């Protein structure tokens, strides 16, 4: 993975950008979940992922190792969600 953060200014937002698009497929706000990165094992809130949105779909990467944790594509007729890069999503729920 290249180190190119200087070239990414204006390209990246945080994981809160996932909240709106993902309300169509999740009953809870996904940004409150904690994701475990398959690549490096780090765990952190989805809201802290680095989201690349100026792309054909949303790509959320681990803030630690830059691996893809989650991808989401809303086409005119479907939603595609890739969680291959997340070992788990941990949602706090009312008891």
């Amino acid at each position: 993975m290249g180190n190119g953060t200087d070239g990414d200014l204006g390209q990246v937002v945080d994981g809160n950008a996932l909240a709106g698009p993902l309300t169509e497929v999740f009953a809870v706000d996904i940004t409150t979940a904690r994701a475990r990165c398959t690549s490096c094992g780090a765990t952190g809130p989805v809201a802290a992922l680095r989201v690349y949105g100026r792309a054909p779909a949303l790509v959320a990467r681990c803030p630690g190792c830059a691996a893809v944790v989650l991808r989401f594509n809303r086409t005119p007729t479907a939603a595609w969600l890739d969680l291959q890069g997340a070992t788990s999503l941990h949602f706090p729920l009312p008891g």
Partner: protein
Amino acid sequence: MAIVSPGFRGRPRPAADLPPGQYPTEDFPVLSAGPTPRVTHDRWEFTITTETGAKHHWSWREVMALPAETVTVDLHCVTRWSKFGTTWQGVSLDTLLADVDTAADYAVAHSYGGYTTNLPLEDLLDGQAWLAYRYDGDDLTPEHGGPARLLVPHLYLWKSAKWVRGLRLGLEDEPGFWETLGYHDYGDPWREQRYQGD
């Protein structure tokens, strides 16, 4: 109030040059799905791997020694912008594949940074695709895929892999980064093949 009428900016182009669902743009939007890889020429390498595992390598200097072509082509991005008359310099994939012995029907382009995209091998041949390293007379910047990117202008621009480092040839079509997330395996802008099933 504009001093120069917008009509004087660029050549007017007939609507017939615009694939369905696209709009023309004068600038060159930068799309990115990850950090921009920074690869120096001395570390850069291009590799073609055949279905038998045979590898063909080129260093930057070896690519520079190959015959260069200059082409002017239109670009069509799946995010709906099209850019007319872009000029590139690079090496034809015909040249790179000339001595590669393969029975493969498909290729996966893979890039520094981990990006992949799949194409039929025949779409990389017969003067349809280039390993491009100059844009508009200048070295290709990292933001636009430098040191070198694939240029396959008859397909949507996501097929023209930025920061390309090689091709893996195979007998089966293997979906790449966007193709595994709902984008079309072929991506012909004139048939508006944006998504799986289009």
